[in-house]
């Protein structure tokens, strides 16, 4: 029976005007977007390899330690998945705002946009009159007059609606994939297929959520026009307003001190205040030293001190003790103030992390944010990949330091007086930074959180739709 209802729903929608428009839109939009993104990707690959070649050439010509540090910075290669999902990896280097200012100024289209914005809206447009429309036409009464359980009708409507939207989307995706696969420069591999499949699975849940939401709203309204009005208001709220406001909301709810103020305070602590503390400690130390070495009591000029030290071993010892202990005093002052500054910095980091976390949690009320996190984390284009990249580059940094230590040690062994900073070295054995994408299983595991929230939201909305439909008055 359920199958009959689903078939009826699909057949009903397929001939409708809205279906044709959405299908046509998808058929044009998805391949065009993928085409543009693929071109972008290929261009980035070329740039990346030429930059890499440039660095290698440079290393052959001028491999001095004074240049190396600046030249061999790790940079992430473009990933094939960016032919579908722009994500935020491309902006890791945002501080410098270097490569390409245009995307910063204009948000651009990609697969996540098509699913998250367009398909959600289309799902509501497909389902806003699922119940209210039948009520208006009077067919709901007729349908329920048959011996048909209400929950089957509901399930049929929601699943039918999801399929009506998902299948045309899949068709358009096939066209998009053809665009990718015929391009020999895109290295589309097994893990990419896996990630894509999972993203599409998430998309199905996402569409299901909005179909269920549409049916829920529809069964609470008597007229379709009121139903679509409510649907669109909720859409604006869930898809556009909540995700965008969540960072601001988080910064109000969990304030973090301004970075610039903390930096100023840190520099005050480690500069002016350190000097004051150092002078005070030194004065105390001097009083103490004078008690122990009365020789130091009378101030004399440096030249005199030098001659006196040469003659008088006791004085020499006293001066050495003074130098040693005053140095210890300054080290102590540096340590104390450094600790204070470290506390401030750690506090700032902690508060900023808490704020980001809160923003993420608040935004997860919105299914759009959940889906976006799911899709970008799976395709290595999200926040998780930024952390992964940082991890890899930290590890490389350690290896590089180890390498430069052993290299300079070898140089000094050969010639103790060598100016290793400015000597040309052979760096063919230097560890090169190699970016390795995180394994799909690990990405999947980390993205499960947002997916779980999306599933819970979908089940919740479905339950609400169920109860609302059971109690609806079909007349």
């Amino acid at each position, binding site marked *: 029976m359920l199958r009959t209802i689903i078939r009826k729903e699909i057949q009903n929608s397929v001939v409708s005007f809205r279906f044709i428009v959405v299908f046509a839109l998808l058929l044009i939009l998805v391949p065009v977007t993928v085409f543009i993104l693929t071109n972008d990707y290929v261009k980035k690959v070329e740039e990346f390899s030429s930059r890499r070649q440039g660095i290698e050439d440079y290393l052959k010509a001028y491999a001095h330690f004074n240049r190396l540090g600046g030249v061999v910075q790790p940079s992430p290669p473009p990933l094939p998945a960016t032919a579908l999902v722009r994500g935020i990896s491309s902006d890791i280097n945002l501080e410098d705002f270097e490569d390409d200012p245009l995307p910063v100024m204009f948000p651009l289209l990609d697969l996540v946009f098509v699913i998250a914005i367009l398909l959600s809206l289309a799902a509501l447009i497909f389902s806003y009159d699922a119940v209210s429309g039948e009520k208006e036409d009077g067919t709901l009464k007729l349908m329920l007059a048959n011996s048909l359980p209400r929950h089957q009708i509901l399930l049929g409507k929601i699943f039918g609606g999801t399929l009506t939207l998902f299948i045309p989307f899949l068709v358009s995706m096939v066209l998009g994939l053809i665009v990718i696969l015929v391009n020999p420069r895109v290295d589309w591999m097994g893990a990419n297929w896996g990630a894509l499949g999972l993203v599409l699975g998430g998309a199905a849940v996402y569409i299901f959520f909005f179909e269920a939401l549409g049916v829920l709203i529809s069964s609470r309204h008597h007229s379709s026009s009121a139903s679509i009005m409510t649907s669109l208001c909720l859409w604006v709220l869930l898809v556009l307003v909540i995700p*965008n406001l969540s960072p601001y909301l988080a910064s109000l709810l969990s304030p973090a001190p301004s970075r610039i103020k903390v930096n100023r305070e840190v520099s005050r602590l480690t500069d002016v205040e350190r000097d004051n503390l150092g002078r005070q400690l030194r004065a105390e130390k001097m009083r103490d030293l004078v008690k122990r070495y009365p020789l130091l009591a009378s101030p004399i000029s440096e030249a005199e001190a030098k001659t006196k030290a040469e003659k008088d071993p006791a004085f020499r010892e006293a001066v050495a003790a003074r130098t040693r202990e005053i140095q210890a005093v300054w080290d102590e002052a540096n340590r104390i103030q450094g600790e204070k500054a470290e506390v401030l910095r750690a506090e700032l980091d902690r508060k900023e992390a808490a704020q980001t976390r809160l923003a993420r949690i608040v935004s997860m009320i919105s299914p759009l944010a959940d889906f976006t996190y799911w899709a970008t984390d799976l395709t290595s284009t999200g926040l998780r990949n930024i952390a992964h990249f940082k991890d890899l580059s930290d590890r490389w940094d350690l290896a590089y330091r180890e390498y430069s230590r052993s290299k300079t040690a070898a140089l000094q062994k050969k010639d103790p007086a060598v100016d290793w900073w400015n000597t040309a070295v052979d760096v063919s054995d230097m560890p090169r930074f190699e970016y390795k994408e995180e394994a799909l299983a690990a990405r999947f595991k980390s993205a499960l959180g947002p997916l779980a929230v999306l599933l819970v939201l979908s089940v919740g909305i479905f339950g609400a739709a169920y109860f609302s439909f059971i109690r609806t008055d079909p007349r």
Partner: protein
Amino acid sequence: MIGTIVKREILDYLKSAKFQIGLVVTLVIAVVATAINIQDFKLRQQDYTAAREEMKGNKYEVLIYRPPQVLSVLVQGKDRVLGSKASLTTLTIPDRLTGYMGSRGAERQRSLSGFGSVDFAFVVRVILSLMVVFLAYNAVSEEKSFGTLKLALANPVPRHHLLLGKGLAGLAIVLGSLFIASTASVLLMLVQPFIVLAGSDVMRILNLVAASALYLIAFYALSLFVSVLVNRPSTALMILLQLWIILVVIYPHLGVDIAENFFRLPGDRELSAMKQAAFQPYEAEFNKVRDAYRYKGDRSPETGRRYFELQALESQKSHEVDLDFGRQLTRQMRLAQNLCLLSPAVLFDRMANRYARTGLDEYERFMQGLARYWQTKYLGLQKLRYEDLKAYQKAEVPAFDYPTERTAEAWIATIPQGLILCLMSLILFVLAYAAFLKKDVR
């Protein structure tokens, strides 16, 4: 007669659920977004004040910060995204801003949605335009499907009176909602003690509201036209919603994509190669003077000055390359904007950003001011170092400011967009009128 029709229509609208829901949603989002943006502006203002303290002190590396714009409370535009910190040295005229204020906000926002920020401009562009669609889609089509259109026209009412009456009533409702939303937002701004609006700001807000009105009128005309053309209200609504998605959501994005793809800009490596080539003729002399000054201990005033002049020249040359790049970027963006000329949303955005001083124009104005400051005041200060060290030590870092745009200039600059919107509305009204005159009302 028209008066009666307008009155009846307005009363109908006021009673309708869609108007009431729409107004409440508009008001709530406008107020919440403005309140949050006000707090955000306050934080950024504080950051800016703290950051300015850094401007004092270092005489060689001068730090300049871009102030947050007060009207970004209503139209965030690109104000947050575009970076806010520039560091000037003899070796660099900055071509882009970096910054703590811009970058983090941008990171957060981009990770989430394709849309920009939620602010008054968003309320107009998305929510009020949707409301317009809902108010107008059944203006004619519903009367037709209910059969009341026949009845109304059976009376001695000229057809154009009926359409005009409906149009005026709808416009009054739309503009009334806009007025309420903007008044609420602006009032919320005015009660904040730290927000001081100058006379020109008030003028700019009025212009912004006027631009919003033009945008909404264009959407209203479009909706009325479709409503006249289509007989079934539900079909009219579907067509309008699809058109809305295309005009407001897809088309503006696609325009940028296409412009970016067909107008390639030089990459970073090409740029630095171009900069090197531009300085090539002076390279040998520069190396000689630098070695003499830095390594051979030649501290004569002539060598010092020449060294300084050559540094400045190198910056100048690479600045010219940057300027050229900027011009290409502008051309690319122009292309993107021109490709989107038929989307009322893009036209409205350009006008709103211009009035709120949160668009690219303001950013470019700031950057030009920065380059001028570098050439006149900053270089003057650095020159002292090689000519009169004592005076240099005594000198203060000269104050930075850049010429602000007059409201009239902004107004003139947005005339084309305004005209296109007016023209669009006019054409659509005329089409609706013509279609209604010829409409079969049975």
